[in-house]
């Protein structure tokens, strides 16, 4: 009559339904999965949009006017979003805060789930289990995720703050990208990071539907297809940039900047 040991006190029996609903939901593993799903999706949408925006670097120069390159104008466009309702740059800041929040939640949920799951099996099998369904992507989520976040920190320092980016000039986006990614090692880091992201999303975007309980016999087959589609889209775009720059297909011509009627900056 030995009895099973519990991982944690059973909430079902405790009547602690007092906390605000989101908090209470977040206490449960399934609740955390919902949070991961939603934040994960939000982040994915950002990456998608971000990738789309970056495509502008292929549009080349604007031939005079306020900006040297389309992508520079895009950078400005991001900041001026929401005007005149919101002052210049504010919308971007809202987005930034949302992104930071999403990351924080996503990571915390990932962390605490990982910890519970470790405790759920302390003694491992001697034979390495031969998996049939669980693939590399699903089993490496926390690692691919971490790679992405590390990359990101550095990425922002590199292209938003210009840390260690030699000829960084705020606002002159293409110039900054060029000066950074024209260095092959950096370009390769970018590629690797984006492949990690791809792996993460390959499982994540399918898993997403399970987590939010979106299960409909008619669409279940298309879930995988959807995930693969989005991942390919994002990855093709994102991987192309470093290669394009490093290989010199796209480069920033300083002359174009010097030729600008009014040089600007936004501090």
């Amino acid at each position, binding site marked *: 009559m030995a*009895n099973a040991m519990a991982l944690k006190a059973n909430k079902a029996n405790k009547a602690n339904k007092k906390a605000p609903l989101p908090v209470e939901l977040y206490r449960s593993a399934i609740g955390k999965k919902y949070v991961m799903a939603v934040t994960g999706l939000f982040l994915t949408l950002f990456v998608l949009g971000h990738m789309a925006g970056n495509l502008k670097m292929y549009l080349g120069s604007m031939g005079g006017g306020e900006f040297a390159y389309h992508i520079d104008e895009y950078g400005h466009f991001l900041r001026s979003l929401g005007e005149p309702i919101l002052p210049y740059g504010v919308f971007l800041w809202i987005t930034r805060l949302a992104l930071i929040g999403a990351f924080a939640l996503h990571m915390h949920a990932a962390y605490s789930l990982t910890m519970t*799951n470790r405790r759920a099996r302390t003694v491992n099998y001697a034979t390495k289990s031969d998996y049939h369904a669980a693939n590399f992507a699903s089993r490496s989520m926390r690692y691919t995720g971490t790679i992405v976040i590390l990359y990101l920190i550095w990425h922002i320092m590199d292209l938003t703050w210009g840390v260690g980016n030699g000829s960084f000039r705020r606002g002159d986006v293409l110039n900054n990208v060029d000066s950074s990614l024209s260095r092959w090692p950096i370009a390769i880091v970018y590629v690797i990071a984006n492949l990690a992201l791809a792996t993460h999303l390959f499982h994540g975007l399918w898993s997403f539907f399970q987590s939010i309980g979106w299960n409909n016999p008619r669409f279940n087959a298309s879930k995988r297809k959807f995930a693969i589609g989005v991942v390919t889209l994002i990855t093709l775009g994102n991987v192309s940039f470093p290669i394009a720059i490093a290989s010199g297909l796209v480069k920033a011509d300083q002359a174009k900047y010097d030729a600008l009627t009014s040089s600007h900056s936004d501090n």
Partner: protein
Amino acid sequence: MTATMNSSTGGAAQQGKTLNVTLKVWRQDGPAANGRFETYEAKTISEDSSFLEMLDLVNERLNDESKEPITFDHDCREGICGTCSLMINGVPHGPERNTATCQLHMRKFTDGQTITIEPWRATAFPLIKDLMVDRSAFDRIVESGGYITVAAGGAPDGNLIPIPKPVADASMDAAACIGCGACVAACPNGSASLFTAAKIAHLNLLPQGQSERYKRTESMVETMESYFGSCTNHGECQEACPKGISIDNIALMNKDYLKSKFKNRRYLSRS
């Protein structure tokens, strides 16, 4: 060894094809003791014998050599009671899909093969002895809500609520779970989501199950989470399940759990 046959089905037993296999079996005297692998040669095993009959034979021989037989859980040997529970070469219930250990036959193995046998591994399944673990955490989950309340004699006529065949069938498919725990054994996270989701789906899909639907879902899920890991959608459980229970049930459980959080609060605030 002594193998007198009980000719219960007539006819002299002529030996069919046989094979020899090497077993690496986890032996552990008790929960506290530390375990070890022991190697046994299982010789001249009939291809028609089941995996457990092969172990019976090994045990018979161990007993003859005054070595204590291997302890393992089993009962119906028809794949329905869910008692048998062996990790065979890293796969719960062994190589054949949709098949419980007791229904696995030696013809699925090759002569000279080495077979590693381990117990289910999960914190919620403490080991009792050798290959036997304690799965009573599953009972705790069902006790917390896996039922429909109805006093004996108080039920309306069985045909009062017609149930569309597809609904009854879907419910039946989920209800086919035998509570063996292979899903937990297989899940990299030691999650019991498939077992719990199957029980929840069985009852939540039926008209009779509606009045307690969200109360059931919330408390069963939270009881489950107090013993087991969480689901990150590896899908390994579905592969290991001898009854082919689908992880679609997990999606249903997740959806109903979220709903339960809202609905139950409303009920609580009412009461």
